[in-house]
């Protein structure tokens, strides 16, 4: 091997001689996404990660709340036959069941609302369709949560 390296540029003889030397350095090109003082610390929030975690945490709690609810409403003590205004009044006389139903309402609506948001994101492709479907979803979700909360807190067993 008698080919000599005439420069220290690392460019071998095949590629030809380097244009640049120590005294004539290549111009410095800034990386296209270099962070500057104006760049925010994080260019995106971690909303999706929080939503992902919420689905798992609320899911575990909902398994207990909803299966308990199904047992009480559909299985024990005559199943669906015993349900009526008097039965609801009896259960909501206890703060324990009020809190149970309130937690179930909020967790299930947020869990389901986020699930449907994912479904819309996956299948609705046109921006306008996505906007309207999500608008409808968020309106229905907020309305249902507020209505249910109002009903639990203002329930009056002596309404008639």
């Amino acid at each position: 091997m008698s080919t000599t390296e005439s420069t220290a540029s690392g460019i071998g003889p095949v590629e030809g001689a380097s244009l640049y030397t120590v005294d004539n350095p290549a111009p410095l090109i800034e990386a296209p996404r270099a962070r500057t003082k104006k760049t925010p610390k994080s260019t995106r929030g971690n909303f999706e990660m929080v939503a992902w975690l919420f689905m798992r945490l609320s899911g575990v709690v909902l398994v207990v709340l909803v299966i308990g609810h199904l047992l009480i409403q559909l299985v024990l003590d005559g199943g669906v036959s015993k349900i009526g205004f008097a039965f609801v009044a009896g259960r909501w006389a206890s703060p324990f069941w009020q809190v149970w139903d309130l937690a179930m309402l909020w967790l299930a609506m947020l869990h389901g609302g986020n699930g449907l948001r994912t479904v819309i994101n996956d299948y609705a492709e046109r921006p306008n369709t996505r906007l309207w479907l999500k608008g409808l979803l968020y309106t229905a979700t907020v309305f249902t949560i507020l209505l249910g909360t109002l009903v639990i807190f203002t329930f009056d067993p002596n309404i008639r």
Partner: protein
Amino acid sequence: MPAGTLYRGREGMWSWVAHRVTGVLIFFFLFVHVLDTALVRVSPEAYDTVVATYKTPIVALLEYGLVAAILFHALNGLRVIAVDFWVKGARYQKQMLWTVVALWVVLMIGAIYPVLGHAARELFGS
């Protein structure tokens, strides 16, 4: 259709599809269910009238379907959590799915009498 162009992801994909379908169905029921419960703020009669439809044999069958959807979504949801957080979760996802299916079948058999019993008595006499 040329071979190999249709994605068929076996247990993993079909459990994902079932989880999604049951989830959407449960959400729509939940919306209706909060509305019907809200009738307790209207009058006891309004609430009892609507709840009476929940006691008819046809709706009893729908309730059995709702229980089926909720139980699958709950059990498979626990499997999804295991896949995500348990070190060996991904390796055993198939075995866990068949465990979910087996548990679901047992629970659904157990739910026949409590959920459908009153409908059977109404249809065939007691």
